[in-house]
């Protein structure tokens, strides 16, 4: 144990006497470990974020988009009858259709025409069950109801971002102008994770869309379908149920699958980063071997005198191996720290919950130690093989 401490002392004294060189050879392990730890940490944190997002969205929501049939020149829609057919499928518990309106300039308050003409907010004709289907609550007021639909009342629900921009106060009686036509704001919809564009949108009934905006039929172009059981099967059935062999088509997808796919893409990117980190570690190892080999030549006199003082070849080899070991340990610790810092910064910037495995940190720091020790083998052997008489240059 004492011998071990003495060897460590000699190694540290050798390293601290050449601080710049030591810092330079530590760079390899530091960068390598930092890159790998950061890649894994960011991946895990982002996966955790995606998982939370998936849980929030639910994995049973299907989005159906109308696709062009034979009616060229027209926006593709899903006929009301087809919507009803989808609603009758055994596993479907809720269906809501929406249709984005065009050429409507929304002006929430006087004097904002120019701005909202340049950056128009989406205006969406919506079915009455949108909050239930998307499982998004209202932050104030209520959503469009049967009375609004049947009476064609000029009422609108707005997204939460638009409400903030608008300066809407909860329960306040306000109107919003759509191409100069005033609509009473009856409620504010909370954030819609699946469709962030809805956060700054205006929602109206299909009756209002037909009466005020010359929509030919109250047909949606998109459906949101909630099917808690057999979700994938329902998603496959919907296009058939919609078209029934006719010209109208529809594409159905489960957004959570897309998120899963996104996480797979992230995985490949992270594997690449991990490989680059591994490469940095290997290059760092080569750097250690290279710089330490030069150091052995520079310190040949010291090696000679230590041999003359009774240090065996084995002791000399261990001295240099311990220097490499110290570089690996320090590089590993600093690298793991830097990597963890990067993960924290990225998680903080993107709003993720930081996920970092302590076992992983220790593991990669140990890999750095391993690389450094392997890299130190050659210079250590070289140091041990030096003949003292050649390095001391007698008489």
């Amino acid at each position, binding site marked *: 144990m004492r011998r071990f401490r003495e060897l460590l002392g000699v190694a540290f004294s050798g390293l601290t006497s050449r601080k710049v060189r030591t810092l330079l050879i530590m760079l390899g392990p530091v960068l390598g470990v930092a890159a790998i730890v950061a890649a894994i940490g960011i991946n895990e944190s982002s996966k955790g974020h995606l998982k939370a997002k998936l849980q929030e969205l639910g994995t049973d929501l299907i989005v159906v988009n109308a696709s062009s049939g034979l009616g060229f020149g027209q926006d593709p829609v899903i006929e009301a009858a087809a919507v009803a057919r989808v609603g009758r499928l055994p596993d479907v518990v809720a269906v809501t259709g929406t249709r984005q309106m065009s050429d409507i300039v929304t002006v929430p308050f006087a004097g904002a025409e120019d701005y909202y003409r340049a950056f128009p907010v989406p205006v969406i004709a919506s079915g009455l069950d949108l909050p239930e289907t998307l499982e998004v609550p209202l932050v104030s007021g209520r959503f469009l109801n049967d009375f609004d639909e049947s009476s064609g009342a000029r009422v609108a629900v707005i997204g939460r971002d638009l409400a903030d921009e608008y300066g809407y106060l909860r329960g306040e009686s306000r109107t919003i102008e759509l191409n100069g036509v005033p609509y009473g704001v009856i409620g504010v919809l909370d954030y819609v994770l699946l469709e962030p564009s809805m956060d700054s949108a205006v929602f109206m009934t299909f009756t209002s869309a037909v009466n005020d905006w010359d929509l030919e039929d109250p047909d949606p172009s998109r459906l949101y379908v909630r099917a808690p059981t057999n979700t994938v099967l329902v998603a496959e059935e919907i296009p058939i149920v919609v078209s029934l062999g006719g010209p109208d088509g529809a594409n159905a997808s489960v957004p959570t699958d897309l998120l899963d796919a996104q996480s797979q893409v992230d995985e490949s990117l992270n594997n690449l980063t991990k490989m680059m980190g591994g490469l940095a570690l290997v290059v760092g190892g080569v750097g250690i071997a290279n710089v330490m080999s030069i150091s052995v030549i520079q310190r040949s006199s010291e090696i000679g005198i230590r*041999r*003359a003082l009774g240090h065996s*070849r084995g002791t000399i080899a261990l001295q240099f191996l311990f220097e490499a070991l110290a570089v690996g340990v320090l590089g590993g610790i600093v690298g793991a720290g830097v990597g963890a810092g990067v993960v924290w910064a990225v998680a903080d910037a993107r709003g993720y919950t930081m996920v970092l495995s302590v076992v992983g940190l220790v593991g990669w720091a140990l890999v750095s130690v391993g690389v450094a020790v392997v890299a130190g083998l050659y210079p250590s052997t070289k140091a041990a093989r030096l003949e003292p008489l050649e390095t001391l240059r007698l008489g």
Partner: protein
Amino acid sequence: MTETVLALEGVSRVYGEEVQVRALDDVTLDIRAGEFLSIVGPSGSGKSTMLGLLGILDLPTSGIVRVRGTDATQLSDAERSRLRGEAIGFVFQQFHLIPHLTATGNVEAALLYRGLSARQRRARALSALEQVGLGARHDHRPVQMSGGEQQRVAIARAIATEPSVILADEPTGALDSHNAENVLQVFGDLQSPERAVCIVTHDLHVAHAARRKISMLDGQIVADEALAPG
């Protein structure tokens, strides 16, 4: 009869394989405890080769090198290194101090891996530095010292392990006459009944500070004479 601390028995050292150079040719020599001897000779006479063999830094092509009676040629590197560290102290012409260590650190380097505690190592190093008159400079680095002082640190390093013999290679060769005289004085003071001092030199003034002079030529001992106290 005093103990033989170092002995060469029919030692030859040949360098090279295709073109062979016989640096030492069948040399026999005994160095006894308490002796102060010098080895002299012109360049190429084999005195440095002999110093390397006496210090078991090198092994002979043939013959036996005995250190405290042990045949060093039969030992493993680790055993030979341990024997060297215990029995022999070295002083070199170029001092060969480790530049990043203080005077104490340099002397302590000779005391590593011997089972001594850090406190014991430091105490022995300071005592050795006191012996050569450098107690006050113990925390100075080589670069902060004169040549004479560096050589005295090297001598302190050589005696810190309490070896049976001190081998010195041109110890005054890199010093001015004043410092050389001081260092010679230190060597004179190192003489003791238990310890032999052997100086390799081509400087006859240094050689005559010793009590026994070995003269070498062409790898052989040509004279082995006792000198009267100067």
